[in-house]
């Protein structure tokens, strides 16, 4: 057992903290109000190497371990959830899925530009009619010689209009029983003919981010872009969710810490009934809960990151981290508004943004209800993890740093 972060971890943490504080924090309120991404933010993240963080150096990445990915997610979401969303989808859903399942040729072609930040990745699974019940998606991929023809619509896709590539899962076998056996995953160039996309307007949160739809009309995808085998799409997608959930959970720790820091600062200053409100027990209770939940979420995600580094299965742990973390983050942001009184209700302060941003995370990457069921089923023995045909490579510094 060793609870210490390495010097490397701490330096990355500090670097990302400085970046988010200097370049994002001063602008985020304005762009959140405008419902627009901060101009150039993805390019900046690419320049800094954040878009290739836990990818081996020989694939154009930075060769950091999986714990670093969690730490970065925490630091980014401390300032704004939209930045962490980039790590979740670009890294968690897309790039790491290619590292996990891709062939060497796919890694060279798609992973290298993603890791270098030259291209941005997304993960497109949800459809207008199917979210939690992902196994029943209707979008199709029909094989014709050397290509698959994709048709259908994906909805609520983070970075839909910003990404260059997406991991897309479609139905290749309409008659599969059970239905999840009929799915296949692809890496799709979103600039291909037949693809149209747009942003969703009127979102409650992540307003400085991009969430949209992608429509596929007879889109030709070469066979060599298939990720995994035909019929393996459900497993590929679920493994992508494991990684996405890890980053969402780690990000939640950042949001809780942000709510806590804002609340502590306010509670020390604001006075009612002759003393700072921090001296009132009911305020203390809220602060204490935030402090507790921050530590718990942090330990959960560090444990998940550690399992990933070891090459052990982390599906259960990632689900638990995401479920606990996002619910705790929502509670923390909610309490932070309460502590700020009427000022918390105004966008002059950050806490109302934390509150709005925290809400979506209880829906995406498996809703709270779905995680409740997953955790119950593990506990009851109704669910267990079977080995995958391929596992996510463990973190091996020598191999990851080799040129």
């Amino acid at each position, binding site marked *: 057992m060793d609870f210490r972060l390495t010097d490397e971890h701490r*330096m990355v943490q500090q670097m990302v903290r400085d970046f988010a504080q200097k370049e994002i924090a001063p602008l985020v309120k304005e762009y959140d109000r405008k419902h627009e991404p901060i101009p150039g933010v993805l390019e900046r993240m690419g320049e*800094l190497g954040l878009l290739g963080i836990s990818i081996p150096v020989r694939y154009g990445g930075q060769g950091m371990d999986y714990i670093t990915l969690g730490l970065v997610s925490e630091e980014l979401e401390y300032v704004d959830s939209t930045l962490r969303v980039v790590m979740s989808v670009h890294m968690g859903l897309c790039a790491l899925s290619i590292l996990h399942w891709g062939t060497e040729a796919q890694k060279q072609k798609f992973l290298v530009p993603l890791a270098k930040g030259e291209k941005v990745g997304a993960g497109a699974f949800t459809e207008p009619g199917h979210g939690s019940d992902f196994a029943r998606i209707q979008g199709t991929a029909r094989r014709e010689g050397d290509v698959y023809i994709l048709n259908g619509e994906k909805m609520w896709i983070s970075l839909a209009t910003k990404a260059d590539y997406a991991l897309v899962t479609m139905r290749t076998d309409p008659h599969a029983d059970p239905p999840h056996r009929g799915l296949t995953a692809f890496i799709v160039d979103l600039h291909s003919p037949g693809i149209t996309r747009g942003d969703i307007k009127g979102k409650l949160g992540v307003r400085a981010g991009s969430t949209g739809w992608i429509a596929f009309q007879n889109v030709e995808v070469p066979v060599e872009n298939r990720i995994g085998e035909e019929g393996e799409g459900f497993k590929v997608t679920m493994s992508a969710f494991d990684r996405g959930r890890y980053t969402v959970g780690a990000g939640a720790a950042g949001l809780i810490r942000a709510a806590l820091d804002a609340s502590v600062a306010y509670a020390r200053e604001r006075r009612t009934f002759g003393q700072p409100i921090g001296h009132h027990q009911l305020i203390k209770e809220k602060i204490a809960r935030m402090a507790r939940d921050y530590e718990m979420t942090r330990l959960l995600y560090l444990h998940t990151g550690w399992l990933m580094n070891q090459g052990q299965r982390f599906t259960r742990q990632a689900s638990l981290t995401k479920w606990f973390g996002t619910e705790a983050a929502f509670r923390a942001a909610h309490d932070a508004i309460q502590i700020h009184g009427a000022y918390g209700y105004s966008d002059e302060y950050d806490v109302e943004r934390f509150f709005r941003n925290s809400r979506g995370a209880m829906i995406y990457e498996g809703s709270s209800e779905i995680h409740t069921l997953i955790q119950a089923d593990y506990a009851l023995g109704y669910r267990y993890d079977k080995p995958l045909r391929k596992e996510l490579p463990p973190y091996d510094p020598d191999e990851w*740093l080799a040129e």
Partner: protein
Amino acid sequence: MKIVVPVKVVPDTAATIKVEDGRVTWGDAPLVLNPWDEFAVEAALQMVEKHGGTVAVVSVGDEHALEAIRKALAMGAKEAVRIHDPALAHADVRATAQVLAAAVRKMGDVDMVFFGRQAIDGDTGLTPMYTARALGWPFVGLVSAFPEMDPAGRTFTAERSVGEAKQTLRAPMPAVVTIAKEFAEPRYPSFMGIRKASRAKVPVWSLADLGLDAPAAKVRWPEITMPPKREVKVEFIEGETPREIAEKLVDKLIEAKVL
């Protein structure tokens, strides 16, 4: 060219500084590279990127100094030395400068020494001048640009920000300078830099390695106290019209001898 940047570890700017039992403490606040030194590291990196060469950092201090050294290495400095000796426990600015000067001499072939303008803890801003004096090199303070840097010709010109004006001067190399924040925004460490920095073995030199006797401190600290708490009074000025409020405000300011 070879540029040496002396760096210092300081408590984070957000730390609460207190005086306890006659000593200054900052609790368990994180330690960071002195923010002014970041500008010096940045300037040095830009110079070697333009003219070739290496940036070396040096810090006088215990293991905590590694925090500052590693940050500078992660930003791109190639070499580092830490100087530590129990005899330096009570070193003052002058003593530290003598140690730094000896280190610069020992490092050899140094063309320039770039300092930050001051350390945010002691805030004396004197170490650079004392070091220049100990080395017998010219000193230029608060440099905001180097319009010319000619290592072969052994000269450089420096632009100094002095209030509203700019002053340009020429000096021979080697020299000691301090870098102003107008020079350039310090870069973030790169991941490659971080990887190298976290694995770097930083040699430690003692006074004996530098061939120095413990330099005697000239400054003693007979007493340290917190600054007196300031009483702040807030008064709302009311009036029917903005003009009336402004007039009342002016009267108050004159009364308080602010105007």
